[in-house]
């Protein structure tokens, strides 16, 4: 299975990563080698096999509907790169 540099660029856009032009061939090459590796999957007959998302087939536990958290905004915003008046800031978004 081979992918092109433009396929990789499209995936990078989805993942919000930029690949510099001078590295796109190398990234594409390594990407292709990983895809070749995972292509082994296609050899396995999986007809009728239920996909497995979690190892032990356990069920979700439920939490009581209680408020357990208090306002810790100042504490939680310590690591934030840009905050004003309690808001996180990002470059202006135009809808």
């Amino acid at each position, binding site marked *: 299975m081979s992918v092109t540099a433009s396929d990789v660029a499209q995936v990078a*856009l*989805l993942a*919000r990563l930029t690949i510099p032009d001078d590295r796109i061939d190398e990234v594409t090459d390594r990407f292709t080698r990983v895809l070749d590796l995972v292509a082994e999957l296609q050899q396995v007959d999986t007809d009728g096999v239920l*996909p497995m*998302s*979690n190892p032990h087939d*356990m*069920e*979700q*536990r*439920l*939490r*009581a*509907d*209680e*408020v*357990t*958290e208090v*306002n*810790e*905004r100042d504490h*939680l*915003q310590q690591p934030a790169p*840009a905050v*004003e*008046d*309690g*808001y*996180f*800031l*990002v*470059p*202006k*978004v*135009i*809808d």
Partner: protein
Amino acid sequence: MTWEMVMGLEVHLQLATRSKIFSGAANRFGAEPNVQACAVDLGMPGMLPVLNEQAVRFAVMFGLGIDARIGKRSIFDRKNYFYPDLPKGYQVSQFFEPIVCEGTFEVPMPDGDLFSIRITRAHLEEDAGKSVHDRFPNQTGVDLNRAGTPLLEIVTEPDFRTAEQAVAYLKALHSLVTYLGISDGNMAEGSMRCDINLSLRPAGSEAYGTRTEIKNVNSFRFVEKAIAVEAKRQQELLEDGLSIVQETRLYDAERNETRSMRSKEVANDYRYFPEPDLLPIVLDDAYIAAVSADLPELPGAKRQRFIEQYQLSNYDAAQLVSSLAMADYFEATVTACGEAKATANWMLGDLAAALNRENLSLEDAPIGPLDLAGLVARVADGTLSSKLGKQVFEGLWLREGSADEIIAQRGLKQVSDAGALESLIATVISNNPDQVAQYRAADEVKQKKLIGFFVGQIMKASKGQANPKLVNELLARALAGD
């Protein structure tokens, strides 16, 4: 060419839990930015979701309320996209296996007739935060208080053909979820948000046209207007031989137009996959039966009961059950006075008009069910004419006291004493000899018209308190006499 409109609706309903769907932060509207966003809601490194049992219960209640199949093993999935109000870069939702599967919903139209909408599914998910665009120059502020609010997304089949149906559905949905107590359904505050998928096709055609999705319309009135304006836009394009672009559009209420939301279109490959931080929700029959046993009487059943128990019309019953407050008010009034039809008339007539005029909700009305029952009873027993009743209603509205107190204070008792009325009649006859002569000369048909004059004079003389039925009877006899 005539066009047929085809619509399906997606409603995002905020569930009225105390805490968020996956964290113990408070689920409340309108607080300072980010004070209700805990580390889980902020998607901080290492934080994990734990599911709120009440959100699950509310979803099941809704499913049972529309006779839907309940997904006994539903799973959460991650919907992946980048946006500043989506802290983890994915929304936890249910894509492959929803908790509520196909169901049907009987929607009363304004005339009282029912029409049936197929519900495709309803699933649990977390709400996103809010972006604030107008507060900072060149920056957008992000408030994540809303992030993690439990949502039930309710999706219909494309069963709507008119805006009126769409609004009727939303109103019926609103009444269902408030009966269930699972949401306040407040559209203005965003507790109930509606996306409209709309397309046109030539009348008689089976195939669907290309649709657009109108996002987040936040009132019943705007739903109606957004549908009208988008249908008109599509029709004009089609009639010009142009095609419709499948896209997401935003309704701008100020300009009454829809416009394309290009920012959402950059890359919409959501890459759904099962959320590995959560396990399947498994519901057994006993759980579902227990939830079902706890359900309150729902609008449909109540409407049917009102028709049968109180001999109401479809229209009156549909109106009265549209909110639980109204239905409860009605039943409390009827219990006290025993007059169902008259109570319905007062509620849907004078009371509704007064509330509307003062922009009040029924809960804030100055007239309680027992007050109204007092009035209805006095009209029923003949103490008040319907005209005097209106005066008592005014008194009740101004909180002058009970109906009987107002009758006494305002001296509004209807005069039904034959002796008193006969002397009034005698005075009127002797004061108006010409009219009496004219009456006596007229034929039977003309007499019926002419008698109105005498009734008017008598009512005037009695300050409106004469029993009109009795006056007519006695007057006819007196005029026919010698």
